């Protein structure tokens, strides 16, 4: 007789109404005034603010069960280990990985990329091989590959972008050759906001035999990531850009790839056995997590992932797309303002120039009106060079921003024109 496997019914999809004013109350930092004006925080692509639940989770860890993981036989260590490993499962669900062993905790996106460059890269990239990046990459998805190419005699090639900030897909198809070992590409551009069609890109790259690493630092806050639907080989992201603590990030890698890779750093917790003659390494993910990890911030990240899941990425995306459309319209009405990055699929970013006025002067005047934006090259100098500008001013969105804040930004920019125009 067939026995029916008892499966827990999936919880019904959350139908929480997205209420931004209510959500804002979850973020204590947003209540303050700066320079006597209510804070309008629009520098979320740099880092997001933290909900109280994340702050309290960190506090609870240090107050109640701080201890090292994977080694103690005492109660506190067991509690800490369970909390730490529970986040791996949450992260697995967050990116829809097939297996929790495919989730490696890192310091952030930058370390995730360097880990892949120094392990998979050193093992698989040789003289004359090619690594492809794109014009719109953040420096952290350029420099580690440059370093690897320098060491191995491999060649770094660059996929260009169109004027609107979209990737040149025809050029990509031509640049992908049997020599291409890896395509390292951002999911969402931090300077332009462009959302790249990653699933199509991965299919194309795989058809030429290239592996694909996706920099998801700017995508994870704004859209649901599904590494299995994307079929990418590696996906990296930072906790602090998704309402979690700094110093913690996630590297996803397909298990077979991770298993074939050499370790990253040597040390405790990544070994199966050590003698002076030979050391046996653990299996992934522990092979890549040497030493005492960032336990507290990992557990804090877990709280952030729960917060996002509860709020609903679809709700967040819908709200942010509304703000983006509203902001695009409002900023476009300002004479002399030029939006940099006008791709048809964008997330979270309004980058602009204002005639001859330098973005740093824009940043200073906005700051004094309580509006926090980023001014500069956004660690994406090749993007600035592509547009022939030294810098842009960038307003970037999060779930807690409002139309009223876009109005404050617009009013602030008009003030800039009044002072310096």
């Amino acid at each position, binding site marked *: 007789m067939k026995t029916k496997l008892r499966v827990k019914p999936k919880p019904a999809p959350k139908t929480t109404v997205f209420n931004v004013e209510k959500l804002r109350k979850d973020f204590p930092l947003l209540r303050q005034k700066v320079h006597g004006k209510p804070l309008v925080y629009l520098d979320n692509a740099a880092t997001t603010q933290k909900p109280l639940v994340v702050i309290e989770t960190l506090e609870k860890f240090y107050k109640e069960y701080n201890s090292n993981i994977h080694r103690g036989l005492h109660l506190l260590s067991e509690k800490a280990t369970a909390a730490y490993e529970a986040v791996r499962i949450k992260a697995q669900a967050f990116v829809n990985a097939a297996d929790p062993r495919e989730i490696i905790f890192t310091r952030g996106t930058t370390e995730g990329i360097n880990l892949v460059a120094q392990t998979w890269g050193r093992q698989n990239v040789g003289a004359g091989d090619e690594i492809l990046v794109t014009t719109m990459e953040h420096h952290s998805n350029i420099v580690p590959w440059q370093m690897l190419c320098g060491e191995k005699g491999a060649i770094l090639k660059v996929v260009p972008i169109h004027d609107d900030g979209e990737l040149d897909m025809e050029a990509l198809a031509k640049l992908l050759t049997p020599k291409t070992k890896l395509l390292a590409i951002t999911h969402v551009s931090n300077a332009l906001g462009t959302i790249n069609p990653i699933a199509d890109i991965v299919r194309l790259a795989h058809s030429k035999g290239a592996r694909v690493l996706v920099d998801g630092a700017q995508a994870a806050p704004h859209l649901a990531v599904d590494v299995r639907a994307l079929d990418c080989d590696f996906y990296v992201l930072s906790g602090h850009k998704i309402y979690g603590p700094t110093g913690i990030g996630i590297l996803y890698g397909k298990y077979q790839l991770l298993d074939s890779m050499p370790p990253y750093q040597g040390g405790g917790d990544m070994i199966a056995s050590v003698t002076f003659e030979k050391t046996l390494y653990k299996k992934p993910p522990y092979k890549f997590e040497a030493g005492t990890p960032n336990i507290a911030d990992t557990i804090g990240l877990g709280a952030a992932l729960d917060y996002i899941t509860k709020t609903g990425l679809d709700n967040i995306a819908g709200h942010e797309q509304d703000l983006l459309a509203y902001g695009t319209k409002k900023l476009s009405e300002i004479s002399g303002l030029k939006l940099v990055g006008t791709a048809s699929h964008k997330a979270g970013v309004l980058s602009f120039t204002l005639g001859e006025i330098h*973005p*740093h002067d824009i940043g200073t005047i906005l700051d004094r009106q309580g509006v926090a934006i980023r001014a500069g090259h956004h660690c994406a100098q090749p993007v600035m060079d592509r547009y022939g500008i*030294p810098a842009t001013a960038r307003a970037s969105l999060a779930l807690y921003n409002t139309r009223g804040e876009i109005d404050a930004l617009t009013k602030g920019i008009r003030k800039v024109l009044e002072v310096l125009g």
Partner: protein
Amino acid sequence: MSDFSDLYQDLILDHQKNPRNFGELSGANHHADGFNPLCGDKIALDLKVNGEGVIEDVKFKGSGCAISKASASMMTVALKGKKAEEAEKMFHQFHDMVMGKEGAKTGELGKLKVFAGVRDYPARVKCASLAWHTMEAALHDQKDVVSTDDGVAP
């Protein structure tokens, strides 16, 4: 616009829009380059110092924010006819003033005192001081590109 007149004074805005002594100096015998990679402010400074150690002429080229451009322009005006050691003294006084150092002397600065407001905008001190650090480097014939945004001390 009174909220910002402490920083963006009329004299500063005038120099930003109409920079004085802009260009390359033929016959220059000292040169230095300044570059702040974080914000992209750039300056190339030429000095002509005569046998008596007097700065006979000075010109600059560059691009950047209002503060960095105006600072460079007003510096060139102030330097002409000054002895090298006087220029150094001005450099130190200017530096102390924009850093908001307690008891900073400003006796040599004249019109340059319009930059005093910069001390209330810590992120902009590096913009105001780039030209001066570049001048100091030119006088000492330093070959390395000068930067004031490497985060340690402007």
